């Protein structure tokens, strides 16, 4: 848990430091092409002589921005739709439930790839594609929670007392549904970071000269033989962040499942 939080803290720090190194992350310096790590560039230089460490920090910022936006949008849209469907039931639930089924029918990252391909590459479209894929998980979870919670005594009491629907949803359902949604948030950060890097690896995400860990890996693969640090540095950073987010989700799940019946 501590290790996971430390890695996530480092990620935030790297993303915060990124803007200071923005200039050197796109600074082409041809004499230094593919040089190994040294005192002037701690993680070496890439195929255009750009500082890999500066690009790594810029990539941390990209990953953080994309995951904040995507998880923020997916969590709020998904939770709202899911709670509404589960609480009110009826035709609303049938429509939203079917919508969830259809989006779930696309395996893994395929829907995001298809959307990014149609919308065209770029950061905005990447966020849109990933959010269109991400809301489903939150919606499914919130719907299941709302369906079981609406039968609880305190919710029935609130209905009997004549509380407004909004008040019941926000004050009486949402707080109890929050724990599993928090776990989902942690896992979905891990998922979005991998998906952003994956789409950028395929050339469908962040466009040059902006840095993403995924596009750094893609560009580095061509020089793997002479300059393995180009692939290793962003790969290790990516694995650490994904590991930390997954680990945090695991720990939260274990802790929260013990007290889910308050």
């Amino acid at each position, binding site marked *: 848990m501590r290790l996971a939080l430390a890695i996530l803290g480092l990620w935030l720090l790297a993303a915060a430091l990124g803007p200071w190194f923005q200039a050197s992350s796109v600074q082409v310096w041809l004499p230094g092409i593919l040089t190994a790590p040294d005192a002037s560039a701690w993680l070496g230089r890439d195929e255009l002589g750009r500082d890999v460490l500066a690009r790594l920090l810029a990539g941390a910022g990209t990953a953080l921005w994309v995951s904040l936006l995507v998880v923020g949008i997916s969590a709020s849209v998904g939770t709202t739709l899911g709670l509404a469907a589960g609480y009110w039931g009826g035709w609303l639930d049938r429509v939203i439930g079917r919508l969830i089924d259809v989006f779930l*029918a*696309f*395996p893994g990252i395929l829907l995001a790839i*298809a*959307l990014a391909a149609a919308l065209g590459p770029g950061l905005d479209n990447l966020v849109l594609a990933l959010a269109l894929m991400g809301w489903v998980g939150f919606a499914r979870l919130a719907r299941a929670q709302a369906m079981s919670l609406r039968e609880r005594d305190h919710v029935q009491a609130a209905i009997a007392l004549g509380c407004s629907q909004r008040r019941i949803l926000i004050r009486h359902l949402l707080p109890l549904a929050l724990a599993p949604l928090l776990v989902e948030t942690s896992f979905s950060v891990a998922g979005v970071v991998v998906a952003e890097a994956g789409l950028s690896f395929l050339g*469908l995400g962040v466009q040059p000269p902006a840095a993403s860990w*995924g596009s750094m890996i893609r560009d580095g693969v061509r020089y793997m033989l002479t300059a393995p640090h180009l692939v290793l540095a962003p790969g290790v950073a990516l694995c650490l962040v994904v590991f930390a987010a997954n680990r945090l989700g695991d720990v939260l799940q274990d802790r929260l499942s013990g007290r889910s019946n308050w």
Partner: protein
Amino acid sequence: MTALLRRVADTSLTLLLVAGLVFALIHLIPGDPVDVMLGESAHAADRAALRARLGLDQPISVQLLDYYAALAQADLGASLHQGQPVTRLLLDRLPATLQLAGAALVFALLISLPLGVVAARFAGRSPDRVASSVALIGLSIPNFWLGPVLILVFSIGLGLTPVSGDEGWGSLILPALTLGMSLAAINTRMVRASLLEVLDQPFVRTARAKGLSPIAALVRHALPNAALPVLTLLGLQLGHLLAGAVITETIFAWPGLGSLLIDAIRQRDYPLVQGCVLLISASYVVINALTDTAYGWLDPRTRRLS
């Protein structure tokens, strides 16, 4: 029987809606899709011809009906670049992807079953902690990084396997490892969790009490009962393998559906993109439905409930 019919109807409806979403893809293209496919300097006559060929000059309701009618005859249109029917191109590439997914599945089972059993048997002790950490690490390595690293170590460093392409069984090893890694990790966790649940049950205690060794009780009584959730997960993950194959095939230049999709995206060959996405997601839907049905047959308890 009625449950089976309902499942078939439900699956068909989902398939129809999935196909509708894939149809909508071409209309998500910002601006004029014909401009995007041909470039803005194309002749007006060429653009009109392409527009007519794709049916884009028709009202959208007519386009949708035509699309479903063609789909019913397995007609997915023709590729813009290669001119061949999309169905034919898909069928050419399908075997390679199935071979890769199958190999990845076998690899994942070979890793995850022993690892999961060991983790459950020694739950909370050091073998469990090692196995669970290995699983979590396996889950956290993205395949587009694992692939290049494996090439670096095994093909370039040790010279054991071909770097890329499809040159017989040897070239299947690294792609299968790359694709199967996350499934191996997920399945290890699943085997552990479902075994742990079963090991607490009275019938396992009874088996131990009548004198069976811990191993025999585990293999003969606990494992068969823990197999169901694992089977469901495998069914679900098989579809994810098809999607994961998109990236893995790109890394290793494996001539399957995934690299076909990425090539089609690069060439803006939208009919082919739609065909690939439709085939992969339709297989996923069908595999999921089959898994659910199999679950009902294998577990009498769920049959009585429904």
